[in-house]
């Protein structure tokens, strides 16, 4: 790991006063303590990582810092640039240069990059926008974040990684002093993540301080100068990463308060006969009719086998999964799907479910859950006949089914009548898993199953996947986190630009080889 740590650039010694200092921040919601006596110091030109399990209080803390929870709502003191500040609202903190970039980006997709950059403070005279000035200044800002796109490009036409850069440019437009990023790389692939982190290190050179909230420890150990661990609303420790590398295990230990001996469950794979097979599977883009997104995929999954699909964002992995699962993506889908060697009809979602398929989507909030319905209602949704008789729901049975899965998956909630919108990410994912377990799948397709989930819950989900495989279910796991694929899979495919470009057994796979396969495919294509 050590070679990944950049040599600390020559910067003014930090004997200078901290840019931001939090002293004994305590925040309660209706008697529930969310933050207790949190201390944090961020120095100018420092990347300070904030880590902790979901629910540890990271977002709440950042909302206090940015004035979303205004002054008298919390106890403790916020000092910024040496003075105690009492923010009355987010406008107040922004005026001082504290800018938050949330996980859900705050960009208007229909507007251009330039229009987004200067939203609400357009260069204008008497209310008439000076388009030339706006364009010119947008160009400068985009150069600073290294985004080579015309300022007139619509934001909707950008990838998520590029949109992140627009958000950062937007912060620069507001003369940012302290940039707060909430899981900026959660939805980025490796190369976009790298690019983004490189930008952050450049901003550091320009003296901009940055608080980085992330679950990806490898990123943190790479870019952070110091990191603070939050656990159960308290600041546990602050570690300095500049002089000596901090091991991921040490961070995890501080986060969970215990040793995580192994991040992946041990399993002895018992791989059976061929269960599921795709032959020459193709799908075209739903709008751009001539763009082939999935280009002749052949794939096999055996009983009890966990098969991974690695690849960059946009490689066509989600598109493959969704086109197989009831043609939920794309047009002109062709190819053969076989279950136990027999062709099966998967042309609609109900048919795919009947064929024994289940698909856990990558975006659980917008594609996986009914957020304003209860856990019980979500659990039964994919198998309503299983909790009804002649079309009449048996509420008691539905309740006990939901209870059963709640216990099995250790879902933390007040009861199964609780709305899923109030659950944490990990628990929401467990509800989605419960839904698909109750549909009795033979092949479970998981798309980024642990995205945005904390370390402890990740392990529980991995264990569940392992347990399912043990029971003979085939697992197809799409993930952008290579360690996760390497830790869980018996075999993995590498997908790039709609094609399978490599296949590795667990024993022969490594991050380098997977990356090599992706890059190699690119080079071949462009050669």
């Amino acid at each position, binding site marked *: 790991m050590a070679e990944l740590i950049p040599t600390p650039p020559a910067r003014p010694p930090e004997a200078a006063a901290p840019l931001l200092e939090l002293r004994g921040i305590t925040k309660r919601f209706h008697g529930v303590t969310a933050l207790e006596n949190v201390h944090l110091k961020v120095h100018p030109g420092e990347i300070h990582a904030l880590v902790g399990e979901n629910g540890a209080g990271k977002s709440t803390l950042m909302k206090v810092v940015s004035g979303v929870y205004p002054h008298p709502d919390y106890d403790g003191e916020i000092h910024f640039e040496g003075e105690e500040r009492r923010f009355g609202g987010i406008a107040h903190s922004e005026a001082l240069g504290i800018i938050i970039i949330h996980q859900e980006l705050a960009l208007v997709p229909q507007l251009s990059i330039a229009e987004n950059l200067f939203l609400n403070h357009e260069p204008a005279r008497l209310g008439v926008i000076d388009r030339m000035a706006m364009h010119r200044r947008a160009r400068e800002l985009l150069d600073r974040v290294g985004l080579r796109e015309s300022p007139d490009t619509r934001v909707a036409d950008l990838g998520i990684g590029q949109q992140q850069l627009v958000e950062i440019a937007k912060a620069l437009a507001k003369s940012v002093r302290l940039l707060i990023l909430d899981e900026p790389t959660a939805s980025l692939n490796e190369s976009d993540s790298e690019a983004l982190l490189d930008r952050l290190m450049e901003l550091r050179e320009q003296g901009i301080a940055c608080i980085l909230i992330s679950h990806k420890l490898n990123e943190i150990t790479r870019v952070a100068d110091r990191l603070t661990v939050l656990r159960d609303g308290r600041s546990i420790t602050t570690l300095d990463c500049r002089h000596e590398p901090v091991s991921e295990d040490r961070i995890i230990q501080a986060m969970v308060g215990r040793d995580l001996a192994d991040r992946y469950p041990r399993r002895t794979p018992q791989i059976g006969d061929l269960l599921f097979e795709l032959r020459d599977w193709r799908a075209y883009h739903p709008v751009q009719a001539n763009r082939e997104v999935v280009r002749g995929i052949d794939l096999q999954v055996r009983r009890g086998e966990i098969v991974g699909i690695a690849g960059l964002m946009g490689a066509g992995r989600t598109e493959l999964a969704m086109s197989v699962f009831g043609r939920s993506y794309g047009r002109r889908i062709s190819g053969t799907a076989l279950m136990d060697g027999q062709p099966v009809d998967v042309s609609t979602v109900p048919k795919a479910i009947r064929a024994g398929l289940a698909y856990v989507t990558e975006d659980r909030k917008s594609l996986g859950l009914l957020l304003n319905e209860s856990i019980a209602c979500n659990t039964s949704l994919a198998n309503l006949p299983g909790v009804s008789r002649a079309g009449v729901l048996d509420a008691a*049975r539905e309740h006990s089914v939901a209870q059963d899965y709640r216990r099995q998956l250790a879902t933390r909630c007040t009861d199964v009548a609780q709305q899923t919108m109030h659950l944490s990410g990990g628990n929401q994912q467990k509800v989605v898993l419960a839904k698909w377990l109750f549909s009795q799948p033979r092949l479970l397709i998981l798309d980024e199953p642990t995205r945005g989930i904390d370390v402890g819950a990740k392990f529980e989900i991995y264990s569940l996947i392992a347990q399912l495989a043990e029971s003979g279910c085939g697992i197809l796991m799409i993930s952008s986190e290579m360690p996760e694929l390497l830790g869980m899979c018996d075999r993995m495919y590498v997908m790039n630009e709609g094609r399978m470009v490599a296949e590795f057994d667990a024993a022969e796979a490594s991050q380098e080889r997977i990356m090599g396969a992706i890059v190699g495919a690119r080079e071949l294509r462009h050669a």
Partner: protein
Amino acid sequence: MHDPLTAPINGAPQTRTAPPPAPRGPAQGGSIAHFLKRHLRDYGMLITLVAIMALFQVLTDGTLLQPLNLTNLVLQNSYIVIMALGMLLVIVAGHIDLSVGSVCGFIGALAAVLMVNYNWPAFPAAMVCLVAGAIIGAAQGWFVAYLGIPSFIVTLAGMLVFKGLALALLQGQSLGPFPDAFQALSAGFLSELFNQDDPRAITLGLGTLLSAVAVVVAWRHRSAGQRHGMEVEPGPIFLLRQALIVVAVMAMSWLMASYKGLPTVMVVMVVLTLAYDFIAGRTTLGRRVYAVGGNEKAARLSGVRTERVAFLTFVNMGALAALAGLVFAARLNTASPKAGLGFELDVIAACFVGGASASGGVGKIMGAVIGAFVMGVMNNGMSILGIGIDYQQVIKGLVLLAAVFVDVYNKRK
């Protein structure tokens, strides 16, 4: 399908070590407040209705609850309630139907043409009208569900089309009167149907039966829930609510009995309300409607045929609008080109006052019915008080806004 309770994960060998759950008893003690808070909206609506009725009862010196007026109140609102049942499902599914008023008028016109001009008997004519309504709903639903055109636009078009067709059918004239058998739908009373001179026996009998059934069903539902450790109404609230239901039903029967007994249309309305409440809350079909409205993409990826569900809500809406059109025509005993004008607004308002969410996925049948009566009682009460139609509209508009405001405010808290 094997039992998921005994085969937890795909028929895996039992690996569970967790102890069986301690059955959660009925919510106890201090949780009454908690329960009320959680179900604030459901009870709030009912309390609002009672409060408004009490207010107008006082303001009108007791005219509101006089048997004659009460009967009229029910008759006046029956068609709104009938359409609100369908509209609620449309709104829960995430759509809207602006055409119901026009469809109502068009079907009334169709009924008049069949029965008056062509001398069709009442029953086949009514059947044809209901089917016509369903077909109208299907046509609009097809555009909305399968072609993905926003329901607002499709039904706005439908509103114009059927208003025009009603005019064309009637050639701008009122058409009537209807045969007696048809009038009985709205003007008839149950006792007449059974050739009884004294409406008391049958009215009070039905009232008693209804309250008894309601209490028994509620009790069984509650104890089944308790056995499975579900959250149920705390005992005192349950008893109080059952008592109130019995008192309300019996008082209503008593008042109705001292006039002419139960109007036929009220029986239709009560039966439909109970049926739709059951469909929405207790069947897989109803659950799918809520799923589609709550998150269409998630519902589709869970195997719900989302287009079909949306389509069916429109077919149902068309049929109910047709029924309402028949009820309205029978009540006036004439089909007028102006029939149904603006009904869609009352119907939609009833749903939103009753707690439905404009973004779909939220709303209850009983809420919509209560919402319809809140608006109806206000109409009736203000008319008795002699408040002009001008300020009635203003007040109704403000009540609608207030109801939604309270919802939004509660959600923020």
